[in-house]
């Protein structure tokens, strides 16, 4: 059954083109089999907390990593991060922040808020796929996930 299959990546990204590029990069390097993509912060929390649109989901089935864009509609990425970190069932999931903003304050917040990693989305597609590949390789294959 589909519900048995563990979700590798929850991708929280509002830009459909960025989402497509990200998913393709993971596909290209066969790093992840099951990617769930949500396009705003509220849906991300709905998914993670198995509520609203996703109320049928098993909350114990957690994605292996969360890729989180910061500039999201409805709820800002950092807010989502805070919620994840303060929810017992979710707080151990590695969160990687994927954004264009090099702003220092974001950086600090990102690390303070408990993000595991903070990566800038490069414009150059090759660099982008390299970043994704390194990410995926580390977090999905190398790293001991809880």
């Amino acid at each position, binding site marked *: 059954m589909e519900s048995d299959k563990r979700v590798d990546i929850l991708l929280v990204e509002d830009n459909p*083109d*960025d989402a497509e590029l990200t998913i*393709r990069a993971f596909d290209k390097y066969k790093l992840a089999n099951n990617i769930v993509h949500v396009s705003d912060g509220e849906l991300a929390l709905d998914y993670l907390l198995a509520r609203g649109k996703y109320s049928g989901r098993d909350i114990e089935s957690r994605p292996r990593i969360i890729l989180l864009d910061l500039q999201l509609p409805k709820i800002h990425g950092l807010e989502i991060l805070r919620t994840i970190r303060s929810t017992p069932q979710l707080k151990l999931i590695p969160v990687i922040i994927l954004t264009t903003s090099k702003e220092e304050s974001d950086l600090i917040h990102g690390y303070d808020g408990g993000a595991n990693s903070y990566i800038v989305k490069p*414009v*150059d*597609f090759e660099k*982008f796929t390299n970043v994704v590949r390194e990410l995926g390789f580390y977090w999905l294959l190398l790293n001991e996930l809880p």
Partner: protein
Amino acid sequence: MNSMKNEKQSETSLLLEKSERMNRLLEESQTIAHIGGWEYDLATNNITWTPEVYRIYGVGPEYNPNSLQNDIAFYAPASAFLIEAAFNRAVKEGVSYDLELQLIRADGNTIWVRTMGRVITEDGKITRVHGNIMDVTERKTAQLELARLNESLEIRVRERTAKLEAANKELEGFAFRIAHDLKAPLRAISGFSKMVAEDYSPVLDEECKRRLAVVSENAAKLDTLISNIVTITRIGTTEPGSSVMAMREMALAMYHEVVPAAEIPDIKFMLCPIPDCTGDSTMMRKVWSNLISNAVKFTAGMPDRVIEIYAETTDSELRYFVRDNGVGFDPAHISKLFNLFSRLHRDCDYQGAGAGLAIVRRIVELHGGQVGAECSKARGTVFWFSLPRSPE
């Protein structure tokens, strides 16, 4: 007999004349200075005023100053309280006073006066109190106005500074939001054109792939441009940090960051010992990477590439040099070199959005330093920047 009487008479009249002259002089000087003299005789309770005192009070010569109560009544209530206390203290204890008070003249106008009083003692007893009173309205009002202006100026400066800081913050945020919003479509342009070239590679001819490459190259250029604009905006709006920077290590690190690994063996890189200095290390790294990156660009394709980094120290500054033996530029264009977006070479030969040197200049100037460049056949091209020496 008569001549002696005459002599005495002329002596007396001379003395009289002199005395009159002195009186006139005194009175005139009192008038000019708006200062009047007064005296209180404890024995007779009489008060004597010089003419200027009458004028200050705005009363005519018919006014009798003998009543202390009346005289004091002219003062504004708070002032009257003060002068009464001071005067009584003088009379009882011999303490002098010097006060600036408000007086309401007979015509109703309020003026500022400065009044001083001192006692005269004879045989250990206080016999008289005398002093002066001076109209200081002009000076006092100017003083008060100045203080008021200063205070309101300070408030205005604080308000403007706060506004400026807020505007700067917003600009920084604005620049970032713009960069963010501009970069997203660029990622799509670069990404999708490359995706097409990759995924449809078997069915695309070389020309098609070339054109797709042009698309993504231009996206990359635009990306650099946007990054530079954001960097330059940030430099103007953030407070530079201050830490000791190991310049030699920094230059070396930036060299390795900037130069593609494949090119490193082709370049003879000479890094001389250069002094440490104080400043913002994040910004200074940008200075090095921009200057080194230029040196790399402009020696590209040469059979024998040299990049040298050295420094000179004077009493007041540390000057760092980046020299390359490359293409160089027309010395006539030096002034334009560090301007935003100026470029001196044909686009196809040398990449770069032209903002690198502008960033260098902005950062160096923010640190109180200067930038410059020289170009000669013998030495090649030298870019330098100077930083003021911190006082030891």
